[in-house]
Structures are given as structure tokens and as C-alpha cells.
């Protein structure tokens, strides 16, 4: 099974559009495909496929819970918390701010009284949808207010890989979030190839160079997908392609038909653009 990613650094360049078009093209070629939406903060692949998500299963993460009866107000938990998620005033029990908590566990490890317990709480949901005979979609959604979404991506991807093996998928396509931080890194880990989807503008080239730098550090082979290829100035993309020694292997022209198909959830109409 091949594991490929659709990524891009910048938002709105067409990562999900490419991931879905590529999925549909592989289906036409008779392949069995699993598409995994790892943009857990804002997942959209189901909308592009014109399907609804049902029967989500919770994804749990450990968070701290204070047992005030055991607490001796020593303040050690607040001292070790690198996220500044524990507020403590001398002589008082600490206050834990879950918005800032990454769930690392430093507080419950350091507490000499065992007054901070780890509590499993839902941090998001996972949806597994069989769209057609040979197409599965796995979607992760983070709970709003959860700041550290990397561990959710990790869990969603792990389960997608398990399912892909179970169903004997030929290809698993991972659609990442924009940006270059932990949620994207988790999605790109162990991929055989990454498609960097970008657009021919200074914004596209600037952000594509950042993700290409990350992919170089991670040692993931990459290719560039140029979306809206004829709307802008392609030379800026050719420059970064040369700098990172990657090829522009796919060009998607600017197309009003594609925009309409996108907003109607009917991208299968425009697979030939790929």
C-alpha cells in the first residue's frame, strides 16, 4: 500500500480539491482507495465528496483533573507546566486552564500527593465512511477549544492505516491541514510521497518553500501540484522548484467549472482536469 499526502503550507491553494480529484482518478483506474482527512481543525473532504458524516466515535486524550481534597497547595504542578496552563497562588490550590493544556502529563507526574489525576476526555471524533465499493473516507474532527491537535491527527491516521490494511487498499491518501506545525508533521510522517499543492503567486511560492523545507527535513520525496496554473506568474514557482530540486508534475488550470463542481460537492464531473 502506498501512503501519499496532499499538503501545501498555504491555506486555500487546493489541497483538498487535489486530494479528492486524485482519489477519484485512482478509482477510475480500478484502484481501491482510502482518503484520510487529517485537517482535523477544519475537515472538508466529505463536503467535496458530497457526503454526510454519521456515527462518529470519540477520540480520547488524557487531561489533568484536580482532586482538591488531596492537594497540599505546593505549586509544583504550576512550576513544571510549560504551557502556563496551571495558575497557582501561594497557599491556594491551583486552577487548571484546559484551553491551554496540551495533555503532556507533567503535572500528574510531579504531584507528590497524587492529587492530579489523569482523566480521559473526548478531544475529537473519528468517522469512517464507505462512499462506494472501492472508496473509503476516514475523517477526524477536533473538539473546538483543543489547542494541541497533533495527537488527534496521529490517532486518526493510525486508525486509517489499520482500516486501509483491513480492506486491502492500494493507496491511502492523507489530506493535511495548512501550515507546517505539529498537526501537519504528524500527517506527513512516513508518507512515501507528498504532493505540494500551490498557486502561481508570491503567497503560494513563499508558503510552498516553507513546506518543502519541512519535507526536506523529514526526508519525504515531494512533487509540486500547480493549481490555478494559468492565473498568476508561474516563474515564482519554477524558482522554488529549482531551489528544492522538485518537479512540477501536475497542473490544474483555473476553471469556473471546477469552482462550481467544488461548491456543489460534485468533483467527479471534473476529474479530467487532473
Amino acid at each position: 500500500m502506498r501512503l501519499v499526502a496532499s499538503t501545501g503550507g498555504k491555506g486555500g491553494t487546493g489541497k483538498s480539491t487535489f486530494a479528492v480529484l486524485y482519489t477519484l482518478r485512482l478509482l477510475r483506474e480500478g484502484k481501491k482507495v482510502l482518503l484520510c482527512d487529517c485537517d482535523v481543525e477544519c475537515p472538508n473532504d466529505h463536503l467535496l465528496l458530497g457526503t454526510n458524516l454519521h456515527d462518529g466515535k470519540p477520540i480520547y486524550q488524557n487531561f489533568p483533573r484536580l482532586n482538591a481534597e488531596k492537594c497540599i497547595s505546593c505549586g509544583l504542578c504550576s512550576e513544571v507546566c510549560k504551557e502556563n496552563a496551571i495558575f497557582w497562588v501561594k497557599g491556594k490550590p491551583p486552577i487548571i486552564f484546559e484551553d491551554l493544556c496540551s495533555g503532556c502529563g507533567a503535572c500528574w507526574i510531579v504531584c507528590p500527593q497524587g492529587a492530579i489525576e489523569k482523566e480521559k476526555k473526548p478531544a475529537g471524533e473519528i468517522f469512517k465512511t464507505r462512499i462506494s465499493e472501492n472508496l473509503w473516507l476516514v475523517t477526524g474532527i477536533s473538539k473546538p477549544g483543543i489547542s494541541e491537535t497533533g495527537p488527534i491527527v496521529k490517532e486518526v491516521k493510525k486508525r486509517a492505516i489499520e482500516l486501509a490494511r483491513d480492506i486491502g487498499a492500494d493507496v491511502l491518501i492523507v489530506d493535511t491541514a495548512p501550515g507546517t506545525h505539529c498537526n501537519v508533521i504528524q500527517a506527513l510522517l512516513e508518507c512515501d510521497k507528498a504532493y505540494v499543492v500551490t498557486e502561481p503567486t508570491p503567497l503560494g511560492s513563499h508558503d510552498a518553500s516553507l513546506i518543502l523545507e519541512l519535507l526536506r527535513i523529514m526526508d519525504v520525496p515531494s512533487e509540486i501540484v500547480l493549481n490555478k496554473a494559468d492565473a498568476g506568474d508561474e516563474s515564482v514557482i519554477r524558482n522554488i522548484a529549482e531551489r528544492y530540486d522538485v518537479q512540477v508534475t501536475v497542473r490544474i488550470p483555473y476553471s469556473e467549472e471546477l469552482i462550481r463542481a467544488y461548491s456543489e460537492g460534485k468533483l467527479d464531473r471534473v476529474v479530467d482536469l487532473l
Partner: protein
Amino acid sequence: MNIVVASGKGGTGKSMLASSLSLLFSKKVKVVACDCDVDAPNLGLWLGVTSYDAVKPISTSEKAEIDSEKCIGCGRCFENCSFGAIEKIDSNFIVNPLLCEGCGVCRMVCPVEAVKVKPVTNGEIRIKETKWGFPLVSGQLKPGETGSGRIVQELRKRANRIDHDVMILDAAAGIGCPVIASVTNCDYAVLVTEPTPSAFSDLGRILEIVNHFKVSYGVVVNKWDVNPSISEKIIKWSGERFLGRISYDREVVNSIVALRPVLVSKSKVKDEIISVYEKIRKLTT
């Protein structure tokens, strides 16, 4: 007054609008513009900025290192790491720096003090006095590093030291840590969307964050004429929160290719942006 521009979905027009609002506010009051999209900072490009007056490396993150000579291979670090950053290779444990969040749990559980946690330079903060008469403070996370939320906190602190009446913050896409760090302590949020089911769905996601932090907000529909019927739906849904709509115009793409702010171009969207600004100004002063 802190005004954040956010959207959930990427590419809806946040930086374009944030750059325009900075220019318009700066005609009346003292402005500082903040690029809080430290993963992929683009606000500078929309203001024609390609170099900075001052660039300061910062360290808001740490990484663990295991001394293989001291390590006894007990595996406690491996069992306790919440981020899967400790890998077992043969009988050795090593830290994958790409996944390490620097929380220090491995050091705390190591019985033989084989783990050190050291600060790393994970990004930079850059300042530019733009030719439009106001400063831009921009952050950049180094690819492969962690701690983007904390870079946003640092750059906001830096921007706060500059005398200003209005701070315009351009947030990242998504709803995770860098976005939460951008939305907290803001007085008003401008939520930019476009007429697609994806952008509308993501608008609902960012709204949960904005409501969670009790920030007042308004909605702008960008490229509204790409799908007028979805635009109508969003406008109806927004009710009195609706701030205005901006047309799709290829001239906007030409502006960014020429690294020229939209407001100094010939685009027909100029008047639409000014009307959005007027509404925001009335609501925030």
C-alpha cells in the same frame, strides 16, 4: 483596540482584508499590524514588504535529548511521552525532535538523569516600518519546529510595546493553538468566509472559538459572486453580524503578483472593502 481577522478555512482572504483594514485605520489612528500566521506568514506580502528592519531569533520551545551513555533502557520516557516523540531503536531510546514538544515529562520520569531538555531557536520575530506609515510585526515558525502558539504570544507582546490605538491581527487558518493565541484578548473578530460549503462549515468552527473566548464578531463574505445562492444563505445566517460582501476580481490576483496592496490597485473591490471598514470602525469605536 485589538481586531483579529480569522476564518477557519485558509485562502478565504484574511491577509488581503487585514492588510486593507490596517491601511484604512492608519489614516485616522495609530495602527500596528500583526501577522499571527506564523506557519505561513503572508501579511507582509500584501503590504509589499519583502525585507524587514529588524529580525530577532526567538526561543519559545525546548527539546529533549537522551544521553545514550547514561540511558539504562528502562523505557519510562517512552511510556510517558504523550506525543509519541520517543522512539525505540534496538535497545536504545532516542528523541524524534520533529515530534518533541519540550514538555519535560521524559526528564521527570528518568531514574538516571539521562535526559536533558534544552531551549531551541524555533522561530523569529520581524519588524518593519512600512511605507504606509505604520509598523508590521510578523512571526515565523522554523519549519519542523513546535511552539507556534507561543510565538504568537511573544509577537503580540512585542507589538504591544509599540504605541498604537488599533492592533490588527491576521490569524492562521484552522482553530488550533496559534489561532487560539491570536483570538484571546481581542475586542473584535472579523470572520472572513467565501460561498462554498467548506468555507461555511469552517466559519461555524471558528465561531465556536470566538464565542468560547466571548469575542464580539462580524462576518464578511469574500468572492460572493462565485456562488450568489450560498452567499445569500451565509448572509441570512449572519443576520445583524453581516459586515459586507466583496466581489471576485482577477485584479486582486494581479495585485498580489505585483506585491501591491489591493487598495492602491484599480480593483472594483476597493469600495466594497472601504464599506466593510466603515462598519467595523463604527462598531469598534
